[in-house]
């Protein structure tokens, strides 16, 4: 339990001449739920995208489940299979049905028999309450349904860690709730989660800790209660006053 499942040490990243991440240090323990917030452009998304190496950091160390991520890392796919991700724009595969979206990776990556994969996928779909939509195609579903399908797709790989990149910001208000509910259920089941979001209600309800980022740096990291009750940094206070 003491061993951190994610360790980031002095992580730096540039886009051209622009530095997006500055000396990031972050440790996440198993079953911890962390919410990352901050103004747009502060590097939140880049931070979590570095964790499954959708973005490559240029300096520093990132260790996920005991594997260091670097150019030399072979089988990056194996690490990615352990780390599920939900995107802002859902990114479901439009040419596959919801069920096929869910079974694609289990079949091809984990070599699960198709029948087993389908059974398992149906379970996950039931969890997020869209089992009745399994045969439909992404384009036929509403935003909220699509996002839940995307969540189910990630869960089908039985990941150890789940990353959420603003999962609700592309949704209409009435759909936000259904996605958040699914995420709350997941949290209660004991998943390690890092969530980039502006939904402070969600943060208060599930997060163990909240990380506030600005200009590529971690400005403040605190237990949820402390974070909302008495933020220490001026910028955090300003941010909270604007968002709440």
């Amino acid at each position: 339990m003491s061993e951190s499942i994610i360790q980031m040490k002095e992580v730096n990243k540039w886009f051209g001449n622009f530095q997006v991440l500055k000396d990031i240090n972050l440790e996440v323990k198993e079953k911890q739920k962390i919410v990352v917030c901050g103004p747009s452009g502060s590097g939140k998304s880049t931070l979590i995208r570095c964790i499954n190496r959708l973005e490559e950091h240029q300096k520093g160390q990132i260790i996920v489940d005991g594997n260091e991520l670097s150019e030399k890392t072979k089988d990056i796919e194996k690490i990615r299979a352990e780390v599920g991700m939900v995107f802002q724009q859902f990114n479901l595969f439009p040419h596959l049905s919801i069920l096929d979206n869910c079974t694609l990776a289990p079949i091809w990556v984990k070599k699960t028999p198709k029948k087993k994969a389908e059974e398992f996928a149906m379970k996950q779909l039931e969890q997020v309450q869209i089992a009745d939509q399994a045969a439909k195609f992404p384009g036929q579903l509403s935003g909220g349904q699509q996002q839940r399908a995307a969540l189910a797709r990630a869960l089908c790989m039985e990941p150890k860690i789940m990353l959420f990149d603003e999962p609700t910001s592309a949704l209409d208000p009435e759909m936000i709730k259904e996605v958040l509910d699914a995420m709350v259920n997941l949290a209660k089941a004991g998943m390690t989660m890092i969530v980039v979001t502006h939904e402070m209600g969600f943060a208060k309800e599930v997060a163990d800790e909240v990380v506030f980022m600005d200009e590529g740096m971690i400005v403040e990291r605190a237990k949820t209660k402390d974070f909302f009750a008495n933020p220490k940094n001026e910028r955090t206070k300003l941010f909270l006053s604007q968002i709440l």
Partner: protein
Amino acid sequence: MNLRIKSIIPQLLTLLFVVAVIGFFTINAQLNMEERGIDFGYGFLNQESSFDVQFSLIEYDGSHSYAKAYLVGLLNTILVSVLGIIFCTIIGVIVGIARLSPNYLIRNTAAWYVEFFRNVPLLLQIFFWYYAALRALPLPENTEPLFGVTYLTVKGYYIPRLIWENFDILIYSILAAIISIIFIRNYARKLQEEKGQQLPVLLISVGLLLIFPGITFITGMVQLDVSLPVLKQLSKTSFIYAEGISVPPELIALVLALSLYTATFVAECVRAGIQGISKGQKEAAASVGLTPNQILKLVIMPQALRIIIPPTTNQYLNLTKNSSLAAAIAYPDLVLVFAGTALMQTGRAIEIVSITMLTYLTLSLSISILMNWYNKKIAIKEK
């Protein structure tokens, strides 16, 4: 009632107009033909054609009928179209991908190629290849071999001919390989569904396709001889290469021009198809642990092909229609053989031109019907 009249009258008028125009033309044609003693009919198709064709895929000489000459022309048209389609696809895909390359030089070379070849009339390009480029080639006796055994000369491209013995056994072996591949595919699917094991189906398929015919060779049931082109003297100064296959320069020029021209359009289709897939798709696929090859095969290609195939088929159709320009450089295609020589020898302009047009029309309509059906089938379903 009022509404019905409102919708019937314009229709009636249009119909009348069309009937009147068609009627006007047919009546005139009938009168003119009657007066000039021309009869109308397709009986000539059975007559002996009595002209030879430079190049034919099936056995044909002047003692066959005009109908057979038509077939010769049609097959030559199909040959040049198929070759053109193959080459324009290869070039087009490479150039289309190159246009998205991160390499500045490659990207711009590809862009330059597209801008140039697309903006020069096809007829001019055909003429260029035939009259300027291929005409500048050396005579057979002065030609240096290309790839050791082939000769590119002003009279054509001479390549070795393959002589098969028991060719039918080879075909059977390939058929057997295909059948066993189908079985293995089914088995592989079942294996996956039940046990999760995955067989390298593609590798096995290729292997079988090589092994089955290979066995027939090893056991000596099928034999292959290669007859190389040999320089043959016809007179003091004129030579040809005999024994091999001679690809006429007309065909080379036509295929070159058609594929280089059409490839620019295919390249644009490919580029649009690849660009049409959002970065998010790739990231999502990567985030669930698919390898780059799997991402390409399972996520990118199926989507890109849906965008690429319909406009590309259109370009293939255009290529086929454009192959009729063959008539300008003496390649014996449908237009040259049938709407050219045959029309000339029989004088039956209306019959022959109508058959020619109908042939192209059937070709393109059937392909576009097929495409519409295919598009509907693969269309990404939405609300």
